[in-house]
């Protein structure tokens, strides 16, 4: 049983990892077809993981409703939103769930356009207030590094609105240059470090050194 619970998953991770690496470097149509097929398999299994995630979310809210915890009515609203949207998705503008999704008309699209899209945009736009508030409280040019950060942020912000060009033609140019040169250099440096770390972590997973994805509990 220990073999099935621990050793077999490690073997599978190793074999699939090695196949994932090799198919990239084999210049043969068969290898490319295998890579495409495996990518599709990965997508299918990941889709089931998404179902698992949504189930966990709904179970959390169902627990609050069942125990009638403080604010349980709000958790009930999650079910209301979920049920309405889910039923409309199954209805699929009269086509049913075993047909390609209707994406240009119907009540599902109406719900998406009038509930999800405005809520999405509003949620993200609220962040403008919080970021500005946080900046007001924390942006203090106490050190040279903090001053550089402050000046850089101000130039980029002013350079991206019409008033920047009114002050001087150099402001939008400088804003663009900051994004395209020093910002790119730092991002590239960070990306190189992160990529090396990602490759090292992936190798640790393939060779069974990193096993946290197996979860804890009984071996």
């Amino acid at each position, binding site marked *: 049983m220990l073999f099935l619970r621990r050793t077999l998953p490690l073997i*599978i991770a190793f074999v699939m990892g090695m196949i994932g690496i090799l198919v990239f470097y084999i210049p043969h149509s068969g290898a490319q077809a295998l890579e495409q097929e495996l990518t599709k398999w990965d997508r299918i299994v990941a889709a089931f993981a998404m179902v698992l995630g949504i189930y966990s979310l709904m179970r959390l809210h169902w627990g609050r409703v069942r125990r009638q915890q403080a604010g349980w009515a709000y958790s009930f609203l999650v079910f209301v939103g979920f049920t309405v949207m889910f039923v409309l998705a199954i209805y699929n503008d009269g086509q049913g769930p075993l047909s390609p999704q209707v994406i240009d008309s119907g009540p599902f699209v109406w719900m998406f356009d009038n509930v999800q899209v405005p809520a999405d945009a509003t949620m993200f736009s609220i962040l403008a207030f919080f970021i500005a508030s946080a900046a007001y409280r924390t942006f203090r040019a106490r050190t040279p590094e903090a001053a550089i950060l402050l000046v850089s942020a101000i130039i980029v912000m002013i350079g991206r609105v019409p008033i920047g060009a009114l002050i001087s033609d150099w402001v939008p140019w400088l804003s663009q240059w900051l994004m395209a040169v020093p910002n790119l250099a730092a991002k590239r440096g960070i990306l190189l470090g992160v990529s090396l770390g990602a490759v090292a972590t992936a190798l640790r997973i393939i060779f069974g050194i990193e096993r946290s994805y197996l979860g804890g509990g009984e071996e």
Partner: protein
Amino acid sequence: MSRDQIFFIVFLFIFATINIYLFGSGSLSADWSGLGTFIAAGITLSLYSFLYKDNPLFKFAENLYVGVAAAYTITQVWYNVLWVDVVDPLSELGSDESLGNLWLIVPTLLGFFMLTQLSSAKFSWLSRIAFAFVVGLGAGLAIPRTIAANLLAQIQPTMGPITADLAGFNLFIILVGVVTVLVYFFYSVEHTGPVGVASKIGIWFLMISFGASFGYTIMARLSLLIGRVGFLLEDWLVLPLPLF
């Protein structure tokens, strides 16, 4: 009656009054389009009410949004992955040319293995096989792609020839920035002497980058804010102002 309750009732009263006027005057059409604008405006204002403080209006809109978004996610998983890649191909297995689709049973079975995570400990170990498949394959596919796209493709333009013009100057700055940022993140050597100087320059580059990213993010969020305010003024209140 508390201040919050008064705020809540006054908001609902004003919102209802405005909408009665808008529907009555014909500014909002009495059809699905008008109803959609009405609901979108209600959700937008409810979510913005958080700027006053956490309140029932915000929680109402927030939880409704979570439910709708969860159902939308499931829908996209079904129609874009499970139906297209699994159900539809497997339902055509009767024909000879679709025998290649038989292989799709393997990832489907692995997917169901993943769902055993919800069952008792007797079966939940099966989910480890599915996780091992996804994580192992993901790691394997990620290594060559990361090396090609994030390492080699980033190093190559950094090492270009430096010419005596603006492009060459920019390239020189990028080279200095990349090297000094890497030196800053290299903790195996004490940051003193020349390494300390390089590390310090690396910090300056990082600060410029963080500041630029911050400014860029703020402007992106402000664009969204302008979009929502534009929706409220033009689409909902139908104000005859050429604001946006």
